[in-house]
């Protein structure tokens, strides 16, 4: 009997009898069905396959848990939780150019720390960038910053505001805000901000927020944003 080049499926010879055609087609169909299933063993949403040690037979890998990363274990792919200290991009986006306020909501509490990277944010009028956690608007935010401009250095403090401030100077093209232990409940929430040009260091705290931070609202009292991007990163 003749066979196909790649998968060795049995096909009728040129001299085979017509009366044996149905049987030959059935045999070929069964072979195709078996090979296809061996190459595509998926059964469930999110499954992926990889080549096994047997030729033309793939192994099914079921989807991992939320936050898992694809790694290699004993020479084959496997899902695994990120190692401690690993960073995962939770979400990223462009600062809305038709809005005066934007909120990142439903922040998962599965990480230890948060990092929010803001690149080249601009607004119609610079009245400073402000921040709220969990939508809390009570006058319980304390902020400070240290600024270096030309050859001078100065600092400012602001207590009992309805927002954290001193997070960014208009000359700072990149700002990175850290929220250590943001998911810890029962503890006050603090953070610090690092800029690239004028505000090398600032910080904020709100002792009345003891729940995990699940939303961060950023706004500017001068008007709408006009440019910028943001990336929220979770740290294990």
């Amino acid at each position: 009997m003749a066979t196909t080049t790649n998968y060795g499926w049995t096909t009728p010879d040129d001299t085979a009898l017509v009366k044996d055609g149905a049987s030959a087609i059935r045999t070929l169909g069964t072979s195709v069905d078996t090979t296809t299933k061996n190459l595509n063993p998926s059964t469930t949403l999110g499954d992926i396959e990889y080549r096994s040690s047997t030729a033309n037979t793939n192994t099914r890998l079921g989807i991992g848990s939320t936050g898992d990363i694809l790694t290699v274990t004993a020479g084959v792919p496997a899902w695994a939780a990120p190692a401690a200290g690993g960073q995962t991009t939770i979400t990223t986006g462009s600062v809305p150019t038709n809005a005066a306020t934007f909120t990142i909501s439903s922040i998962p509490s599965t990480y230890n720390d948060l990092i929010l990277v803001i690149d080249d944010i601009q607004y119609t009028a610079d009245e400073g960038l402000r921040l709220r956690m969990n939508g809390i608007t009570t006058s319980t935010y304390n902020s400070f910053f240290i600024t270096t401009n030309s050859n001078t250095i100065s600092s400012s403090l602001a207590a009992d505001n309805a927002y954290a401030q001193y997070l960014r100077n208009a000359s700072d093209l990149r700002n990175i805000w850290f929220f250590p232990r943001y998911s810890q409940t029962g503890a006050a929430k603090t953070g610090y901000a690092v800029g690239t040009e004028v505000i090398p260091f600032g910080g904020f705290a709100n002792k009345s927020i003891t729940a995990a931070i699940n939303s961060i609202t950023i706004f500017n009292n001068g008007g709408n944003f006009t440019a910028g991007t943001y990336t929220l990163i979770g740290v294990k």
Partner: protein
Amino acid sequence: MTKPMITIHNAETDEIITREMNNSEYTQYQKDKTNAEAEKAENEAKVTQKAALLDRLGITEAEAKLLLG
């Protein structure tokens, strides 16, 4: 009157909604704006008062820092 827009990015689903501020958000927005203007005016007044005081004392800012240092 048209209220300012607000954008909400759901980090779990990646859904982004941009809509007009609701009444409570708009009230807070106006309150923040008033506070920011008052804060700015207060800071500007402090700078003016400082300059006037230095002028009355007849010393420069650097000399004042030296005295306080």
